[in-house]
């Protein structure tokens, strides 16, 4: 039985696993143009009427929404093989629903909507991968909506820790407490307090810049509570 949380969760549950294959990225890139984005630069702004799609080649893109008071909710991080604004290429009267910002230096290839339309009509393999990516995104966002609306901060933190646990041999992503707060729908001080409480319970160890997961089974139980 595959685990419900963590990097070994099924591809359908884990958006980080469902990405476009190198072949599809290459095929779509031939009709696009490469853009380099400086750290912190905005790729798209919430409300834009943009239909171009960015395929992420290098780096990470943070997609978030902000309240009028300035509080931010991270929706997803996009990595190489992901597509930014894919629904915009196919939905009429589209307005970008969230802001996308470069985390560090980012390289994307910008693919016009008409190119995607042509690819979907003429190349079923590309169409299938795009649909698979969209399906995974729908599942991920519905899960996120459930987590934010119905799970406690503690359960959301447990789920976050298990999901973002770095796989052996990979470079772990860096998180500030503010990043974590934005990701799980809380604020920095609550994140700090929740992590300290989990450390006191022996679920994790806080060792300088490392959050070490000690009891994944217990975190699973908390994530499901």
């Amino acid at each position, binding site marked *: 039985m595959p685990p419900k949380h963590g990097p070994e969760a099924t591809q359908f549950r884990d958006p980080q696993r469902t990405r476009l294959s190198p072949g599809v990225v290459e095929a779509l890139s031939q009709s696009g143009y490469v853009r380099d984005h400086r750290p912190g630069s905005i790729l798209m702004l919430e409300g834009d009427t943009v239909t171009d799609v960015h395929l992420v080649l290098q780096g990470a893109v943070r997609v978030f929404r902000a309240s009028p008071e300035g509080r931010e909710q991270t929706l997803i991080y996009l990595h190489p093989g992901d597509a930014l604004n894919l629904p915009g290429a196919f939905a009429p009267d589209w307005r970008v629903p969230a802001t996308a910002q470069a985390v560090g230096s980012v390289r994307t290839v910008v693919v016009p909507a008409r190119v995607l339309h042509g690819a979907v009509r003429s190349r079923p393999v590309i169409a299938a991968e795009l649909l698979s990516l969209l399906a995974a995104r729908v599942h991920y966002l519905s899960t996120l909506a459930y987590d934010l609306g119905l799970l406690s901060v503690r359960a959301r933190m447990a789920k976050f820790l298990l999901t973002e646990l*770095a796989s052996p041999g990979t470079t772990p*992503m860096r998180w*500030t407490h503010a990043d974590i707060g934005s990701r799980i729908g809380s604020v920095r001080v609550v994140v*700090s307090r929740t992590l300290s409480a989990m450390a006191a319970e022996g679920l994790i*160890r806080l060792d*300088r810049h490392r959050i*070490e997961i000690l009891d*994944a089974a217990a975190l699973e139980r908390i994530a499901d509570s």
Partner: protein
Amino acid sequence: MPETALPQYDPERCTGCGVCLAVCPGGVLALEEGRATFSAPENCLYCGECELACPAGAVQLYYVIVQGDRMSA
């Protein structure tokens, strides 16, 4: 040699107010040419006081999530 992680520092955000110097228990920070610098990084305790104190958000502690040595099955 053990790794010494330091807070992330954005010099473009730093206003040179010096508050981080005042709160740092290890004397890690100094002001040079109107900006804070990590002049004694070996003393950094990663306590987070600089992050809490900085009014410009120029300093942030980062974390990585890794497997501990007592993972349950």
